[in-house]
């Protein structure tokens, strides 16, 4: 796009340098623990999403990473350096290595767009000419070159966040922290901001740690996800694998809006003991989800099932499938045969109950 963009950097090699390492970080406000022993590692070039409900501690967590909030105990390493217990003055040079974007953009209303973008460089002590040159490069990167002299109040939400991103990148940080950066934006603008973040991650090799309460955000940009609940990380892994097989109840609940769910009308009349049809959920991920599973099933066991709901999603280029099927129970052996067939093909099968209504 322009000169800001250096050679492409390969994304998130397993052995890549650690940018962030948290070890048993605790923080409490009064008697309520906001962080209750969080350990997490973020490697160079990765995009890691931290998801949780409001009040789960994710804001405190991200603010601990640049020292806006101090941890009570535990260790926080940024680029190998322990930042726990550093004074405000000692933190200041370290913060220049970390960019941050915010839910409400936090642009200075009294400064123009380019002055906002150039502010981190002013703090760094660059000359005005250098600052404006770099600001122009960054505004080009985020596609807002024509707004350099405008004031933030004249911009739309998406444009404001683009300025926020340009400003966060101005001092060439090693890490970008995103604090609910898309939560105040409409879905379409959210997508465009996420595309920009992904783009920057690929082009600049920038490590990004983002917190959000929206699974959709994690789904579309993150490589890895950590689920936080009541100040603890309850689940962590590659995004596609967590989506394919969520373990913690909180993860399942956060995913409920984005994964196929058994339709309410069927769920309402489900009986745990008996009915005309047995309802199964089928989860698959990776190569297993790409095969000709249903075609094979209907060939092996004709008339053995009815598709109720579901689909295949592609996350990080991995197919993640979730289906609901109904298996007639007039032949008592059939449900077990179907289950065995599916499990042999690498699917995770769960019996949800029996549909009492369907003939």
């Amino acid at each position: 796009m322009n000169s800001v963009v250096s050679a492409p950097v390969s994304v998130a090699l397993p052995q890549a340098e650690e940018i962030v390492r948290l070890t048993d970080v605790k923080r409490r406000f009064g008697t309520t623990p906001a962080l209750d022993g969080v350990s997490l590692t973020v490697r160079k070039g990765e995009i890691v999403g931290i998801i949780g409900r409001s009040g789960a501690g994710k804001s405190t967590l991200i603010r601990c990473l640049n020292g806006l909030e101090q941890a009570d105990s535990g260790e926080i390493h940024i680029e190998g350096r322990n930042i726990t217990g550093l004074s405000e003055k000692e933190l200041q040079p370290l913060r220049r290595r970390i960019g941050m974007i915010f839910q409400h953009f936090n642009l200075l209303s009294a400064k123009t767009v380019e002055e906002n973008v150039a502010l981190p460089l002013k703090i760094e002590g660059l000359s005005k000419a250098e600052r404006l040159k770099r600001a122009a490069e960054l505004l080009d990167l985020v596609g807002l070159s024509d707004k350099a002299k405008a004031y933030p109040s004249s911009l739309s939400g998406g444009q404001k966040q683009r300025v926020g991103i340009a400003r966060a990148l101005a001092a060439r940080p090693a890490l970008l922290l995103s604090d609910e950066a898309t939560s105040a934006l409409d879905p379409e603008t959210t997508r465009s901001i996420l595309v920009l973040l992904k783009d920057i991650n690929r082009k600049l090799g920038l490590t990004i740690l983002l917190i959000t309460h929206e699974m959709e955000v994690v789904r579309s940009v993150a490589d890895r996800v950590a689920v936080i609940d009541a100040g603890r990380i309850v689940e962590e892994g590659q995004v596609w694998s967590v989506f394919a097989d969520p373990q913690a109840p909180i993860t399942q609940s956060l995913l409920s809006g984005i994964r196929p769910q058994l339709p309410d009308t069927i769920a309402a009349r489900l009986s745990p003991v008996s009915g005309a049809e047995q309802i199964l959920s089928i989860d698959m991920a990776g190569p297993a989800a790409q095969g000709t599973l249903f075609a094979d099933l209907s060939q092996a066991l004709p008339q053995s099932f009815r598709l109720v709901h579901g689909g295949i999603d592609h996350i990080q280029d991995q197919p993640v499938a979730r289906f609901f099927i109904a298996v007639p129970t007039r032949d008592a052996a059939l449900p077990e045969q179907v289950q065995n067939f599916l499990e042999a093909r690498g699917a995770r099968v769960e019996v949800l109950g029996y549909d009492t209504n369907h003939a």
Partner: protein
Amino acid sequence: MTPIMLELLFRSLWETILMTGASGIISLVAGLPLGLALVATSRGGIAEKPWLNSVLGAIVNGFRSVPFIILLVALIPLTRLIVGTALGTWAAIVPLAIAATPYYARIAEVSLREVDRGLIDAVRAMGGNRWTIIREVLVPEALPGIIAGFTVTLVTLVGASAMAGAIGAGGLGDLAIRYGYQRFETTVMIAVVIVLIILVCGIQWLGDRLVARLDHK
């Protein structure tokens, strides 16, 4: 109105402008840092020091609770020390400035307190220190309010300067009392009131225009 009266009116206007302007500028220069200190040292401020905040708050409240006419007399020794005399226009500037500084500090404090905490966080996250926060965030973001508050202070000073006649400072208020009220010269009274209205409207108009130009919210 006689030419002499007209000349008296103009001289009084000048005295009022001088008293208001000089004490206004002093209250701006001293009151803004005081307002900043009140905000910075408060709970959750950028230089949190509750005891200092309490002390500053008590001093400000102390000065603000003394009626101006009392302050005018009570400060005579100090005025004499600074100006060399306790009488006249210049002597009035000392008590006016001392009364206006805590008044303006409180007004500035309100504007500074309204600056979004998120903006301070953003500049802290960039690696900015306290001075950067004051220079790049607090003052510029609160500037429309700081100017609007200064306008209010100036108008209040125009009123307060009338009392300064008690120490022979002259000014429009003094003219109105001595000629208009005590000598029953209604024309002078009306003329003074009209000039005061024009003066106050002018200050307000200038202040409003400046605020409109600076406000990008």
